[in-house]
Structures are given as structure tokens and as C-alpha cells.
């Protein structure tokens, strides 16, 4: 167990393992996204009240759900980097922020577009939507804060504190539709009760949520690999990667 944690802290080991995980996870993610999108867009039945505009759910809900989960991952990585000063946790925290921002942006934009045919407006300052906008700014804040510091150790510490403070917003987002009067509908998928959706609509939605979790993992690993290379510039293992790439490129050129 402890040896695993020691390995987890090693950039060359992480780079190698993430490469082998991505070799199967990336094609699987693309397959899940393709199947889920086609199923949701063309084969799922239309909603009796919202008609076909309801199909936006297959992008809006997975993006929003994973955007919230990504914040937890970022905050946990931030806590680990603060408490145990683990470099890999800093890399994970920094890598999470742009992915979370992109997914939150997707959740907001898809929600705005869905709002037009459903509510008759692109935007309302509703508790759920406003708290999601705050989440977006928190992600952007972490990205900007890391860039603002020249001393990267201090940057990581500041970002970790911001990530941890921002976790207050996550339960607010979850509970906003219950705590305040809201145009936004309550949760469609519930852990404790039966879902309010018909199974023909629910199955592609669950598949898309799984696909977005896989997408997040792939993107996180790709971002971490890029960051590990940059942080390891001039070290032997990065030199080996350069030489390995040169060898592969040479072989391709020869063919």
C-alpha cells in the first residue's frame, strides 16, 4: 500500500502508467460518447411536455454532474498538497481547474440554450444557475491564481486554499433547487428514490454520465502528463521521453 503511494509520487512512474491507462481509456471514452450521443439525440423518445428540446439533457446533465465532481477532486488534491506537500497532488489540482471550467461552461451554455424554448428566457438569476456561475468563477480563479504567482510552491498553496474554501459552494448547488424557489427543475436522478425519468430516456443519460466521467479522467491524465513533462524539463526521464519520441519519429519517417 505504502509503496503504491511512493510510486504515485514519482513523475516517471505516473507518466508511464497514465500512458498505458490512456491507451485503452481514450478509445473507450470516444466510443461511449459516440453511442450515448447518437442514442440520446436520435433514439430516445421525446418528452411529452418539452418535446425534442429535452434532448439537451444528454449534454447538460453529464457536463454539470462531472463539473461538480471535478471540484471535489480538485479540492481533495489541494488538501493533500497542503497537508502532505505531495507534488503529484499539486499537479492534479492544477490540471483539474481548466477541465472543470470547461465542463461548467458547457453546463451553463447548454442550460441557457435549453432555457429559451422551455422557460422563454436564456438566463435568470436563479439560485442553481447563479451558484453554477460562481463555480465557473472559482475554477477560473484557481487557473488565474496559479498563473499570477512566480513562486509555484506559493501558487499551489494559494490555489489549494481557494479550492478548499470553494467547496462550500458545492452543497449549495446541489440543494439550491430545494432551498429556494427555482425555475430549474429538481434532480432527475436520485440515489434514494426511484428516478422520475422513463428507463428509455434514463439509460442513454446514465451512459453519457459515465462517458463524461471517463472524459474527465482522460483529460485529467493528459493535462497531468503535460504538466509533469514541463516540471521535469532537463531531467533524465524527460530526456528519455524525447529520445523515445525521436526514435518513433525516425522510424515513421523511414517508412
Amino acid at each position, binding site marked *: 500500500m505504502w509503496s503504491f503511494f511512493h510510486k504515485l509520487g514519482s513523475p516517471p512512474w505516473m507518466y508511464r502508467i497514465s500512458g498505458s491507462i490512456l491507451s485503452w481509456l481514450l478509445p473507450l471514452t470516444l466510443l461511449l460518447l459516440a453511442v450515448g450521443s447518437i442514442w440520446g439525440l436520435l433514439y430516445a423518445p421525446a418528452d411529452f411536455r418539452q418535446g425534442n428540446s429535452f434532448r439537451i439533457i444528454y449534454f447538460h446533465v453529464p457536463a454539470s454532474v462531472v463539473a461538480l465532481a471535478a471540484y471535489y477532486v480538485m479540492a481533495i488534491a489541494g488538501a493533500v498538497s497542503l497537508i502532505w506537500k505531495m507534488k503529484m497532488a499539486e499537479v492534479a489540482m492544477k490540471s483539474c481547474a481548466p477541465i472543470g471550467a470547461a465542463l461548467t461552461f458547457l453546463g451553463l451554455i447548454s442550460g441557457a440554450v435549453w432555457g429559451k424554448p422551455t422557460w422563454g428566457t436564456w438566463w435568470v438569476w436563479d439560485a442553481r444557475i447563479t451558484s453554477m456561475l460562481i463555480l465557473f468563477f472559482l475554477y477560473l480563479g484557481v487557473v488565474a491564481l496559479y498563473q499570477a504567482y512566480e513562486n509555484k510552491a506559493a501558487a499551489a498553496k494559494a490555489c489549494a486554499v481557494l479550492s478548499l474554501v470553494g467547496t462550500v459552494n458545492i452543497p449549495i448547488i446541489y440543494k439550491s433547487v430545494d432551498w429556494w424557489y427555482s425555475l430549474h427543475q429538481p434532480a432527475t436522478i436520485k440515489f434514494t428514490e426511484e428516478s422520475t425519468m422513463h428507463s428509455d430516456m434514463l439509460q442513454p443519460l446514465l451512459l453519457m454520465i459515465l462517458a463524461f466521467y471517463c472524459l474527465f479522467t482522460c483529460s485529467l491524465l493528459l493535462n497531468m502528463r*503535460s504538466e509533469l513533462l514541463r516540471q521535469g524539463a532537463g531531467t533524465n526521464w524527460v530526456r528519455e521521453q524525447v529520445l523515445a519520441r525521436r526514435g518513433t519519429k525516425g522510424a515513421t519517417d523511414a517508412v
Partner: protein
Amino acid sequence: MQFDSLAAALAMDGHGAYVWFVALVTFAVIAGLLLLPSLSSRRFLREQDGILRREQRAAQQQHTEVSHASSS
């Protein structure tokens, strides 16, 4: 399939513009999430390759100069 034709699938009873716009934005974001870090890593490795080649050339040149000096 829920639609009789491609035109019906694109129109989606008047909701097509909303649904397909969101689908396109989603695919663009997914492409960005997967391609940008990969391109960044590739660019970094190319830059490092350039640095390494320059270092190797400089070392080789130095080695040649030293061997010339010792032979003369």
C-alpha cells in the same frame, strides 16, 4: 429511430437549432479537452528535442576541437 428522415432529425419539430447547437458546442469542448494537452505535450517534447540536439552538436564540436588540439 425517432425520426422519419434526416430533415426531421435536423429540424426536431422546431427545436433542432437548440439541440444541435448544444451538441456542436459539446463536441468542440470535448475536442479541446482531449487535443489541447496532447498538442502541448508534443510541442514541449519537440522544443526539448531541439535543445538536446543543440547540446549534442556543441558537445561533438568541443570533442572534435579537443582531439584536433591533442593531435597537433
